[in-house]
Protein backbone atom coordinates (compact mmCIF):
# COMPACT_ATOMS: atom_id res chain seq x y z
CA UNK A 1 0.00 0.00 0.00
CA UNK A 2 1.11 3.55 -0.74
CA UNK A 3 0.36 6.90 0.67
CA UNK A 4 0.39 9.91 -1.64
CA UNK A 5 1.06 13.35 -0.27
CA UNK A 6 -0.24 15.87 -2.75
CA UNK A 7 0.62 19.56 -2.62
CA UNK A 8 -1.64 21.88 -4.55
CA UNK A 9 -0.74 25.53 -5.00
CA UNK A 10 -2.29 28.40 -6.90
CA UNK A 11 -0.50 29.17 -10.13
CA UNK A 12 1.94 32.04 -9.95
CA UNK A 13 -0.21 34.23 -12.18
CA UNK A 14 -3.29 33.82 -9.98
CA UNK A 15 -3.72 36.27 -7.15
CA UNK A 16 -3.80 34.56 -3.74
CA UNK A 17 -5.98 36.76 -1.55
CA UNK A 18 -5.76 34.39 1.39
CA UNK A 19 -1.97 34.41 1.33
CA UNK A 20 -2.08 38.19 1.14
CA UNK A 21 -4.28 38.48 4.20
CA UNK A 22 -2.09 36.11 6.19
CA UNK A 23 1.02 38.04 5.20
CA UNK A 24 -0.56 41.27 6.37
CA UNK A 25 -1.65 39.74 9.66
CA UNK A 26 1.84 38.40 10.26
CA UNK A 27 3.21 41.85 9.53
CA UNK A 28 0.82 43.42 12.01
CA UNK A 29 1.90 40.86 14.61
CA UNK A 30 5.48 42.00 14.23
CA UNK A 31 6.79 39.49 11.67
CA UNK A 32 8.03 42.06 9.21
CA UNK A 33 10.49 39.75 7.53
CA UNK A 34 7.89 37.73 5.62
CA UNK A 35 7.75 38.99 2.04
CA UNK A 36 5.39 36.31 0.78
CA UNK A 37 2.88 33.69 1.86
CA UNK A 38 1.11 31.34 -0.53
CA UNK A 39 -1.67 29.08 0.61
CA UNK A 40 -2.70 25.84 -0.97
CA UNK A 41 -4.09 22.40 -0.20
CA UNK A 42 -2.37 19.38 1.25
CA UNK A 43 -3.99 16.04 0.59
CA UNK A 44 -3.06 12.67 1.98
CA UNK A 45 -4.47 9.85 -0.11
CA UNK A 46 -4.11 6.17 0.76
CA UNK A 47 -3.83 3.81 -2.18
CA UNK A 48 -4.18 0.07 -2.21
CA UNK A 49 -1.78 -0.48 -5.06
CA UNK A 50 1.10 -2.91 -5.25
CA UNK A 51 3.76 -1.05 -7.19
CA UNK A 52 5.06 2.45 -7.18
CA UNK A 53 4.66 3.17 -10.88
CA UNK A 54 1.02 2.20 -10.87
CA UNK A 55 0.51 4.35 -7.79
CA UNK A 56 2.14 7.34 -9.43
CA UNK A 57 0.07 6.93 -12.52
CA UNK A 58 -3.13 6.74 -10.53
CA UNK A 59 -2.27 9.83 -8.50
CA UNK A 60 -1.54 11.82 -11.63
CA UNK A 61 -4.83 10.64 -13.09
CA UNK A 62 -6.86 11.60 -10.03
CA UNK A 63 -5.22 14.99 -9.84
CA UNK A 64 -5.81 15.79 -13.48
CA UNK A 65 -9.41 14.74 -13.35
CA UNK A 66 -10.67 15.78 -9.94
CA UNK A 67 -8.26 16.91 -7.31
CA UNK A 68 -6.68 19.84 -9.12
CA UNK A 69 -8.07 22.52 -11.40
CA UNK A 70 -5.33 23.17 -13.96
CA UNK A 71 -6.74 26.59 -14.88
CA UNK A 72 -5.66 28.01 -11.55
CA UNK A 73 -3.69 25.33 -9.74
CA UNK A 74 -0.40 23.40 -9.95
CA UNK A 75 0.53 20.29 -8.01
CA UNK A 76 3.35 18.06 -6.96
CA UNK A 77 3.23 14.84 -5.00
CA UNK A 78 5.31 12.31 -3.11
CA UNK A 79 4.69 8.64 -2.59
CA UNK A 80 5.64 6.63 0.46
CA UNK A 81 5.13 2.95 0.86
CA UNK A 82 3.21 2.15 4.03
Amino acid at each position, binding site marked *: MFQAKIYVTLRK*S*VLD*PQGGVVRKSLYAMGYQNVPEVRIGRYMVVDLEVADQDAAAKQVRDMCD*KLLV*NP*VIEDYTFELVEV
Partner: protein
Amino acid sequence: MKFGVVVFPGSNCDADCLHAIKVVTGQPVEYIWHKSGSVDGFDCIVLPGGFSYGDYLRCGAVARFSPVMTPVIDFAQRGGLLLGICNGFQILTEAGLLPGALHRNKNLQFLCHDTHLRIENNQTPFTSLATAGQVIRVPIAHGEGNYYADTATIQQLEENKQVLFRYCDPQGEITPAANPNGSVNNIAGICNRQGNVLGMMPHPERCAEDILGNTNGQLIFQSLLQQWQRRCG
Protein backbone atom coordinates in the same frame (compact mmCIF):
# COMPACT_ATOMS: atom_id res chain seq x y z
CA MET B 1 -40.96 24.98 -24.30
CA LYS B 2 -39.90 22.53 -21.63
CA PHE B 3 -37.42 23.48 -18.94
CA GLY B 4 -35.43 21.08 -16.78
CA VAL B 5 -33.75 21.96 -13.50
CA VAL B 6 -30.97 19.60 -12.47
CA VAL B 7 -31.01 18.56 -8.82
CA PHE B 8 -27.64 17.67 -7.32
CA PRO B 9 -27.90 16.40 -3.75
CA GLY B 10 -26.66 19.72 -2.37
CA SER B 11 -28.45 22.04 -4.79
CA ASN B 12 -30.45 24.58 -2.86
CA CYS B 13 -31.70 26.95 -5.54
CA ASP B 14 -33.35 24.13 -7.51
CA ALA B 15 -36.81 24.82 -6.12
CA ASP B 16 -36.25 28.55 -6.59
CA CYS B 17 -35.37 28.14 -10.26
CA LEU B 18 -38.35 25.88 -10.83
CA HIS B 19 -40.64 28.37 -9.15
CA ALA B 20 -39.30 31.37 -11.05
CA ILE B 21 -39.45 29.65 -14.42
CA LYS B 22 -43.02 28.58 -13.78
CA VAL B 23 -44.12 32.02 -12.63
CA VAL B 24 -42.31 33.99 -15.33
CA THR B 25 -42.73 31.80 -18.42
CA GLY B 26 -45.77 29.71 -17.60
CA GLN B 27 -44.03 26.86 -19.41
CA PRO B 28 -43.68 23.28 -18.17
CA VAL B 29 -40.66 22.71 -15.96
CA GLU B 30 -39.38 19.56 -14.24
CA TYR B 31 -36.57 18.46 -11.97
CA ILE B 32 -33.81 16.23 -13.35
CA TRP B 33 -32.19 14.02 -10.69
CA HIS B 34 -28.38 13.98 -10.68
CA LYS B 35 -28.30 10.21 -11.11
CA SER B 36 -30.39 10.46 -14.26
CA GLY B 37 -28.79 9.19 -17.46
CA SER B 38 -30.81 11.19 -19.93
CA VAL B 39 -32.09 14.69 -20.55
CA ASP B 40 -34.24 13.88 -23.53
CA GLY B 41 -37.27 16.04 -24.12
CA PHE B 42 -35.98 19.24 -22.55
CA ASP B 43 -35.52 22.45 -24.48
CA CYS B 44 -33.58 24.33 -21.85
CA ILE B 45 -31.64 22.99 -18.90
CA VAL B 46 -30.74 24.93 -15.78
CA LEU B 47 -27.91 24.06 -13.42
CA PRO B 48 -29.07 25.83 -10.25
CA GLY B 49 -27.17 27.40 -7.39
CA GLY B 50 -26.26 25.73 -4.14
CA PHE B 51 -23.48 23.48 -2.94
CA SER B 52 -23.86 20.52 -5.29
CA TYR B 53 -21.77 18.07 -3.23
CA GLY B 54 -20.94 20.32 -0.32
CA ASP B 55 -18.40 22.04 -2.57
CA TYR B 56 -15.72 21.12 -0.08
CA LEU B 57 -12.93 20.54 -2.59
CA ARG B 58 -13.63 23.20 -5.17
CA CYS B 59 -17.08 24.44 -6.07
CA GLY B 60 -18.55 22.29 -8.80
CA ALA B 61 -15.57 19.93 -8.97
CA VAL B 62 -17.41 16.85 -7.79
CA ALA B 63 -20.70 17.67 -9.52
CA ARG B 64 -18.94 17.66 -12.83
CA PHE B 65 -18.57 13.87 -12.50
CA SER B 66 -22.15 13.09 -11.57
CA PRO B 67 -24.01 10.80 -14.01
CA VAL B 68 -26.35 13.50 -15.31
CA MET B 69 -23.44 15.57 -16.59
CA THR B 70 -22.71 13.18 -19.44
CA PRO B 71 -26.07 13.80 -21.20
CA VAL B 72 -25.98 17.47 -20.17
CA ILE B 73 -22.61 17.99 -21.84
CA ASP B 74 -23.88 16.17 -24.88
CA PHE B 75 -27.03 18.34 -24.91
CA ALA B 76 -24.92 21.48 -24.83
CA GLN B 77 -22.63 20.28 -27.57
CA ARG B 78 -25.64 19.68 -29.76
CA GLY B 79 -26.62 23.32 -29.26
CA GLY B 80 -29.16 22.90 -26.43
CA LEU B 81 -29.83 25.91 -24.22
CA LEU B 82 -27.96 25.51 -20.94
CA LEU B 83 -28.01 28.05 -18.13
CA GLY B 84 -25.72 27.74 -15.11
CA ILE B 85 -26.46 30.05 -12.21
CA CYS B 86 -23.91 30.53 -9.41
CA ASN B 87 -22.90 26.97 -8.50
CA GLY B 88 -24.16 26.06 -11.96
CA PHE B 89 -21.63 28.44 -13.49
CA GLN B 90 -18.88 26.87 -11.39
CA ILE B 91 -19.91 23.43 -12.62
CA LEU B 92 -19.86 24.62 -16.25
CA THR B 93 -16.27 25.82 -15.92
CA GLU B 94 -15.19 22.65 -14.13
CA ALA B 95 -16.82 20.63 -16.91
CA GLY B 96 -14.98 22.63 -19.53
CA LEU B 97 -18.16 23.91 -21.18
CA LEU B 98 -17.06 27.43 -20.34
CA PRO B 99 -13.48 28.66 -20.04
CA GLY B 100 -11.82 29.96 -16.89
CA ALA B 101 -12.40 29.27 -13.22
CA LEU B 102 -14.17 30.80 -10.25
CA HIS B 103 -12.10 31.12 -7.13
CA ARG B 104 -12.48 32.73 -3.74
CA ASN B 105 -13.89 36.22 -3.45
CA LYS B 106 -11.16 38.78 -3.07
CA ASN B 107 -12.22 39.66 0.49
CA LEU B 108 -12.46 35.95 1.39
CA GLN B 109 -16.04 36.35 2.56
CA PHE B 110 -19.31 34.97 1.27
CA LEU B 111 -21.28 37.91 -0.12
CA CYS B 112 -25.03 38.22 -0.44
CA HIS B 113 -26.35 41.53 -1.74
CA ASP B 114 -27.76 43.28 -4.78
CA THR B 115 -25.41 44.11 -7.62
CA HIS B 116 -25.89 46.03 -10.83
CA LEU B 117 -25.09 44.34 -14.10
CA ARG B 118 -24.52 45.88 -17.50
CA ILE B 119 -25.76 43.71 -20.33
CA GLU B 120 -22.88 43.66 -22.79
CA ASN B 121 -24.40 41.63 -25.57
CA ASN B 122 -28.10 41.41 -26.39
CA GLN B 123 -27.60 39.15 -29.39
CA THR B 124 -27.94 35.92 -27.41
CA PRO B 125 -30.95 33.76 -26.55
CA PHE B 126 -30.48 34.75 -22.89
CA THR B 127 -30.51 38.49 -23.39
CA SER B 128 -32.46 39.15 -26.56
CA LEU B 129 -35.07 41.31 -24.85
CA ALA B 130 -32.47 43.64 -23.37
CA THR B 131 -31.37 46.90 -24.88
CA ALA B 132 -27.63 47.17 -25.47
CA GLY B 133 -25.91 48.42 -22.34
CA GLN B 134 -29.04 48.03 -20.22
CA VAL B 135 -28.39 47.99 -16.47
CA ILE B 136 -30.26 45.50 -14.31
CA ARG B 137 -30.20 44.90 -10.55
CA VAL B 138 -29.64 41.27 -9.57
CA PRO B 139 -28.48 39.80 -6.25
CA ILE B 140 -25.36 37.70 -5.76
CA ALA B 141 -24.81 35.08 -3.07
CA HIS B 142 -21.47 33.31 -3.28
CA GLY B 143 -18.11 32.81 -1.65
CA GLU B 144 -16.28 31.81 -4.82
CA GLY B 145 -17.36 33.99 -7.67
CA ASN B 146 -14.04 35.58 -8.53
CA TYR B 147 -13.76 34.90 -12.25
CA TYR B 148 -10.30 34.14 -13.55
CA ALA B 149 -8.92 33.15 -16.93
CA ASP B 150 -5.53 33.76 -18.47
CA THR B 151 -4.96 36.81 -20.60
CA ALA B 152 -5.33 35.08 -23.93
CA THR B 153 -8.64 33.53 -22.93
CA ILE B 154 -9.95 36.84 -21.65
CA GLN B 155 -8.98 38.50 -24.88
CA GLN B 156 -10.86 35.88 -26.86
CA LEU B 157 -13.94 36.20 -24.67
CA GLU B 158 -13.94 39.94 -25.19
CA GLU B 159 -13.36 39.75 -28.91
CA ASN B 160 -16.15 37.24 -29.42
CA LYS B 161 -18.53 39.21 -27.23
CA GLN B 162 -18.89 36.24 -24.91
CA VAL B 163 -19.02 38.45 -21.84
CA LEU B 164 -22.74 38.97 -21.30
CA PHE B 165 -22.80 40.62 -17.89
CA ARG B 166 -20.39 42.87 -16.08
CA TYR B 167 -20.68 44.25 -12.54
CA CYS B 168 -21.26 47.98 -12.75
CA ASP B 169 -22.46 50.89 -10.66
CA PRO B 170 -26.12 51.96 -10.83
CA GLN B 171 -25.26 54.28 -13.71
CA GLY B 172 -23.69 51.49 -15.72
CA GLU B 173 -20.05 52.46 -15.18
CA ILE B 174 -17.63 49.57 -14.87
CA THR B 175 -15.64 50.54 -11.78
CA PRO B 176 -13.44 48.65 -9.32
CA ALA B 177 -15.82 49.64 -6.53
CA ALA B 178 -18.68 47.95 -8.33
CA ASN B 179 -16.75 44.68 -8.56
CA PRO B 180 -17.82 42.65 -5.53
CA ASN B 181 -15.43 39.73 -5.78
CA GLY B 182 -12.34 40.62 -7.80
CA SER B 183 -13.42 39.11 -11.12
CA VAL B 184 -11.22 39.92 -14.10
CA ASN B 185 -12.77 42.78 -16.10
CA ASN B 186 -15.75 42.81 -13.70
CA ILE B 187 -17.05 39.68 -15.41
CA ALA B 188 -20.31 38.39 -13.93
CA GLY B 189 -21.44 36.06 -16.70
CA ILE B 190 -20.12 34.58 -19.93
CA CYS B 191 -21.42 32.37 -22.70
CA ASN B 192 -19.68 29.88 -24.93
CA ARG B 193 -18.61 30.65 -28.48
CA GLN B 194 -21.86 29.31 -29.95
CA GLY B 195 -23.96 31.31 -27.51
CA ASN B 196 -26.11 28.44 -26.22
CA VAL B 197 -24.40 27.99 -22.84
CA LEU B 198 -24.50 30.78 -20.25
CA GLY B 199 -22.84 30.84 -16.85
CA MET B 200 -23.53 33.67 -14.44
CA MET B 201 -22.84 34.24 -10.74
CA PRO B 202 -25.82 36.54 -9.97
CA HIS B 203 -29.23 34.99 -9.35
CA PRO B 204 -31.93 36.11 -11.80
CA GLU B 205 -34.46 33.75 -10.17
CA ARG B 206 -34.23 35.80 -6.98
CA CYS B 207 -35.58 38.93 -8.62
CA ALA B 208 -38.41 37.72 -10.79
CA GLU B 209 -41.48 38.55 -8.69
CA ASP B 210 -43.04 41.78 -7.48
CA ILE B 211 -43.45 40.55 -3.93
CA LEU B 212 -39.67 40.21 -3.68
CA GLY B 213 -39.30 43.86 -4.66
CA ASN B 214 -37.51 43.41 -7.98
CA THR B 215 -38.43 41.84 -11.30
CA ASN B 216 -35.26 42.56 -13.29
CA GLY B 217 -34.41 38.87 -13.47
CA GLN B 218 -37.49 38.11 -15.59
CA LEU B 219 -35.64 39.42 -18.59
CA ILE B 220 -33.48 36.34 -18.90
CA PHE B 221 -36.29 33.81 -18.67
CA GLN B 222 -38.49 35.85 -20.99
CA SER B 223 -35.69 36.19 -23.53
CA LEU B 224 -35.23 32.42 -23.55
CA LEU B 225 -38.92 31.86 -24.13
CA GLN B 226 -39.18 34.48 -26.85
CA GLN B 227 -36.16 33.10 -28.71
CA TRP B 228 -37.46 29.60 -28.51
CA GLN B 229 -40.91 30.62 -29.72
CA ARG B 230 -39.36 32.46 -32.60
CA ARG B 231 -37.36 29.40 -33.65
CA CYS B 232 -39.75 26.60 -32.82
CA GLY B 233 -42.99 28.47 -32.72
